[in-house]
């Protein structure tokens, strides 16, 4: 896996997301080797059983939108309006994510992983992160 682009930009998710050799985004979650709880982001200790044996677990890049909202207020760094939601992945993980604004977003509808700019830092850097967009992953 390569590092994400490093041009005057702030990579928001740290090690929780990356870009593969084909330039496609990948979410890096965790799986506890002791109790098999899956989580995002990965933590050094399991949130279910306290085991410290937590392995990297690439997460599915498609999921179902549980709920979402378009927000018109909030900290200055975010683009406004911003669209955020909860995405349920098929392996049981729910994650909070920025969403690509689109009329096609729908509760219960399919979403797929992508990347995008979600704001600008106080230092003027573009804040980029993983985000989900409506529809299935383009082949």
């Amino acid at each position, binding site marked *: 896996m390569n590092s994400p682009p490093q041009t005057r930009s702030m990579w928001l998710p740290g090690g929780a997301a990356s870009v593969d050799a084909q330039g496609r985004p990948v979410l890096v979650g965790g799986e506890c080797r002791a109790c098999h709880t899956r989580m995002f982001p990965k933590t050094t200790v399991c949130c279910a059983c306290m085991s410290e044996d937590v392995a990297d677990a690439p997460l599915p890049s498609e999921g179902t939108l*549980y*709920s979402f*909202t378009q927000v*018109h*207020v*909030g900290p200055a760094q975010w683009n406004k309006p911003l669209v955020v939601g909860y995405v349920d992945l098929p392996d*049981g993980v*729910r994650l909070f994510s920025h969403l690509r604004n689109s009329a096609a977003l729908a*509760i219960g509808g399919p979403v797929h992983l992508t990347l995008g700019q979600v704001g600008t830092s106080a230092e003027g850097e573009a804040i980029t*992160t993983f985000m989900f967009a409506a529809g299935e992953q383009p082949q």
Partner: protein
Amino acid sequence: MSTAYVIGIGMVPFGKFPQRTVVDLAWPAVKAAITDSGIDPRKIEAAFCGTTFGGMMTGQRVLGHIGLSGIPVTNIENACSSSSTALRQAVTAVRAGQHDVVLVLGVEKLTKFGGGVLPLELEDWDVSQGMMMPALYAMRAQRYMHDYELTPEQLAGVSVKNRKNGALNPDAQMREPVTVEQVLASRPVADPFTLLQCCPTGDGAAALLVASEKVAAQLGNRAIKVLASDLTSGRYTPGYRDMTIPEITVRGAHEAYEEAGLGPDEIDVAEVHDAFSIAELLYYEAFGFCGRGEAGRMISEGETAIGGRIPVNPSGGLLAKGHPIGATGAAQAVEIVRQLRGEAGARQVESARIGLSHATGGGITGFDHGACAIHIFARA
């Protein structure tokens, strides 16, 4: 275990007071509670102070300012449940026989942030990715409206009811009634919420004196009995949760009803945590005031208005009375005590005998909410 009573209450009107210090916001509420009780302040044996942003040693700063020093003071941060948690600690201490008279204080000064959404903990993952309280509640509303019948007009109806109640409360921050049309036409905050469906930012303080049966008996029959004092925290999960069911409140309600030995049908008046319009509706169902999916009908039919089957948030709630977060739980308890004493003036709920207060909050990853404190009170 012995019984605890509320023997004194006080609060300052909620509003925007950027020129006042936290200490100057809080001490008048404490003094009012002491005056209300008629008790000698030297009889106060301990104090619990709830605040989220009040700063180091808030309780000592406030109490030292008015000659109440040298007693054990515990400062409590539990987000929107800070002073309801303080109340629970005071009740626990009195019931255990540790103290006879305990002071509870809640104070917050949110104007120090200069407006905008409540600042959350940046160390939290979801917050680092853009989570904020309006977004969290808005996602609950969106999902509820997807799963159940609830119209935007019904949702706005919560604000209309609570602003109407707030207009009758001299301690409320928002004292102008509004119409459904005004609510829906106010500026968008987080879909489906418009501004008037979000609690205002503000400052305030409230205080209560909790005492043992022995002390309460000396004061005549004005004391209000604490039937239940429940605190719980959210259950963490990295996986799926049904956001239309506030699990922390459902669990807390069950525990509180069991402790009080009663059920939802016996509650005459309730103050619940209506930080955003949807919240009050979710809590109707969580407390069993109606069945699943019936909250929209309940607000439409006026069942929770003053004069309805079960009046909710007669004070105006967080939407109208305001939500200086550390002061909220104590202020809700103050309102219920006023209602049970029959001292609520124009917003008095007829012959209220048993009342409930509920403060929950804390937007953190993996939880419905971080904390929830529920109290049930009865006229002695």
